[in-house]
């Protein structure tokens, strides 16, 4: 491998890294990252997920964010930088993999195209630069894949286990690699892989041991029994998500390249493994009702390798470099258009204004009802049961709810109407109307889509 080729691909990955970093610090925002960051904040404060608060995810990403917050201070900037770098590292691992395996004359452009297909994917840029588990899951997933093919498999197991510890979305990875090793490897390799998986799963096993009932309810029970509550239209929603690629330039480009890559490169070992991984991921992720486009980012590195496989086969039949360059250029143009079109979407900057208002009006000792982001930005600790807004939809008897740290909506409504909260912040106008907050509080302020209420009238 020539140094110049490494430098060219490195420069492309560095440019993508810079872009991801800038995006993560300016536009990177996902509504759901609020509870991920709040969970990290609670862990940093000595609380334990599952045992002390409800947390419907596997724990590694929250523990990782807690470590980052410990080092960089409470806030979203540090975790976003980490996520952007994790995504950039994924891009590098995939580009390097393609660079090492593609035919010499075209390999630089094939590697750059693969890098662009991940690093400039609009869904990945939107979500894998936030503090949710997408960046970490992609990185661990592709590391597991490379270790599985290139060894040592113990590390493949550790990475696959860690990926599942970061997000259950990556669960199929460990299973497919396990089956791959059973059919393609010896007993020793399988044993080493399983040992590695167990090491990677240590955070999961630890919390399963110390709070088995709560862990089981949060990570499995919630998704089985409560996930679809308040989502009566999940079937149509899911159908829309699963066919969304038909109405997206990047989605269509990726689909065509991946489908052609599966067919054209099926005799190559890495293409076969990637095909199984992508198929397993897509099948699994389409059964999580409701599903979302961002869930599929965990399959993106493998899809990019398949797409690069298609471009490689195309090069072997039609030896020109421009198709790969065109793919990279198109990905950049499509991303630029999306970022421009989404410039007015909600971001952390909007919420910082809301948090400033909360800080201004709250008195010492006031109980705060707020979105998770506001707890993080203001440094206020959420009252028990308020650690995750979506958990209020779990309706269950009070004794069970207490054990699982759940505050059902009916009970929360009672607390609001009783005037338990000195300050209420909400970015849900329907909720504001439903609870009649304007009648309960003497002072209010609307900031963009969000509202801050204070000065209880009864007081």
């Amino acid at each position: 491998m020539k140094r110049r080729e490494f430098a060219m691909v490195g420069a492309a990955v560095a440019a993508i890294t810079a872009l991801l970093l800038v995006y993560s610090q300016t536009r990177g925002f996902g509504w759901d990252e609020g509870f991920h960051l709040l969970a990290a904040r609670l862990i940093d404060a000595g609380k334990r997920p599952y045992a002390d608060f409800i947390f419907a995810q596997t724990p590694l990403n929250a523990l990782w964010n807690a470590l980052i917050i410990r080092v960089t201070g409470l806030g979203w900037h540090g975790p976003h930088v980490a996520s952007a770098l994790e995504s950039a590292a994924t891009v590098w691992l995939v580009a390097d993999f393609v660079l090492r395996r593609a035919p010499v004359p075209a390999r630089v452009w094939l590697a750059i195209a693969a890098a662009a297909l991940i690093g400039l994917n609009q869904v990945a840029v939107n979500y894998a630069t936030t503090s949710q588990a997408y960046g970490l899951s992609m990185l661990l997933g592709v590391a597991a894949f490379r270790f599985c093919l290139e060894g040592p498999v113990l590390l493949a197991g550790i990475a696959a286990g860690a990926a599942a510890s970061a997000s259950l979305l990556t669960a199929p990875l460990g299973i497919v690699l396990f089956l791959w090793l059973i059919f393609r490897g010896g007993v020793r390799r399988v044993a080493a892989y399983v040992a590695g998986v167990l090491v990677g799963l240590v955070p999961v096993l630890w919390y399963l041991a110390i709070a088995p009932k709560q862990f089981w309810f949060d990570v499995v029970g919630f998704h089985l029994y409560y996930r679809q509550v308040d989502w009566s239209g999940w079937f149509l929603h899911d159908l829309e998500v699963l066919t969304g690629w038909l109405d997206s330039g990047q989605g269509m480009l990726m689909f065509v390249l991946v489908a052609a890559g599966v067919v054209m490169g099926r005799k190559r070992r890495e293409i076969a493994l990637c095909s199984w991984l992508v198929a397993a991921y897509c099948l699994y992720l389409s059964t999580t009702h409701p599903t979302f486009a961002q869930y599929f980012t965990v399959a993106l590195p493998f899809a990019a390798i398949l797409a690069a496989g298609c471009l490689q086969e195309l090069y072997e039949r039609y030896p020109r470099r421009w198709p790969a360059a065109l793919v990279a250029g198109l990905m950049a143009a499509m991303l630029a258009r999306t970022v421009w079109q989404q410039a007015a979407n909600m971001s952390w900057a909007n919420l910082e204004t809301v948090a400033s208002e909360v800080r201004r009006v709250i008195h010492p000792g006031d109980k705060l009802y707020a979105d998770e982001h506001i707890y993080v930005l203001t440094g206020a600790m959420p009252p028990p049961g308020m650690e995750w807004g979506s958990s209020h939809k779990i309706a269950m008897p009070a004794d069970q709810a207490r054990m699982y740290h759940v505050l059902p909506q009916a009970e929360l409504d009672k607390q609001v109407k009783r005037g338990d909260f000195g300050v209420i912040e909400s970015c849900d106008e329907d909720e504001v109307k439903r609870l009649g907050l304007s009648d309960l509080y003497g002072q209010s302020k609307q900031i963009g889509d969000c509202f801050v209420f204070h000065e209880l009238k009864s007081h």
Partner: protein
Amino acid sequence: MNSNPTKRDRVILGAVCATIAAALLVYSQTEAFAWDEGFHLLAARLILAGKRPYADFLFAQTPLNAYWNALIMRLTGVGWRIPQAMAALETAGAVWLISSYVLRRSRLPVAIGLAFLIGLNDVVVWYGCIPQSYGLCMLLSAAAFRFTVGERALFAGLASGAAASASLLAAPSGAVLFIRMWRRPAFLAGALLALSPVLWALATTPRQFVFDVVGFHVNYRQVQWSGWVAHDAGVLTSWLDSGTGLILVGLAIAGIWVGRSRPDVRLCAWVACVASAYVATAHPTFPQYFTVAVPFAAVLASAALEKVSGRWPAAAIAMLMVAALAREIWQEHGDFSWGTLAPVIAKVKQVATPGARVLADEHIYLMAGIMPPEGLEWSSGHKIEMPLDQARPLHVLPQSELDKQIKNRMFDVLETCEESDVKRLVLRALYKNTEQIGDDCFVFWNPNRP
């Protein structure tokens, strides 16, 4: 060049085109609707009633499509269904002309893939099934191209001229074909013959024609469109965020490259580029304007598809186009349509007594059988603000004057689907009776006259 396709190939391609035509027909009778088609149909209705565009009412389009719709209405009655069915058939005709040309040059799978690529393109389907001039322009442009490559200059000129007479959007295509045929006077003769509706209007009402067809677009088109730069940038890059748009544009660009030695590809490349560049300068521009370039882009795409052996690429394109269109129709289902307007039309008919002065959207005039008062033939014409002595001969009623008439309660019945107008003009205070129909439309009657 496969200059002699087998009968079997022709039958199969014909069956594919017939299936696409059937799909377009069904769509045209159920979901197809565009707000702007109202004034096209109303113009046809006015022509049918003996009025002349430009001379008797404001009409910012070249006239052939309006005359064509008027002829259809003369034969089949006033309404939207038959003009929409005709538009669907015109679009299907364009699909057949282009795909059968490709069949003569290439293989059956390429021709079939291409028929799906253009016939099920979402913008082609949305706008090729309504009585605006997109279907007619695509058909005439495709015909002009085939006559040009077949060296039949007179017919090529006729089709090019007719396309420009149907819509100025098609004029650049005709200009490029004219340059290609400049040694053939028959082309010019045919074009002039087909442009006779335009030339007649220009001769009989020069001032109004030039104002309507040129002056309006140059001076008034951007009024009330302050954000047109961002809007146009969004439209011009929209293919990047559309799966089917990306396939068509991507294949067309690849076709220019791989087929650059072919004269027909070079011709189509010029026409598609010139037509797209011209349409891009129409501020504000819209995706449907680019349908005039679709037949030529399709020939370019075929040059790229020809390079891929086997049947699966064409089959994949067909499946992708079907799936993408099905998704689009599913997502758009429930949007505004002629069905939404039916209760509004019924209400206006119920409350408008004979001789009542009615202010309504163009669709309502058409379907309620009410002739619009002078100056109300085209609602977008109200944004032309000019002194009344200038406005009168141009059949323009400026918004400020219309507002005065509304506030003076000069309309017995007022229908609008603009809630902002209801608030701006405080219409509820002006009329004794109001009914909101659906989410968007309102009918007011019984004005509170002093």
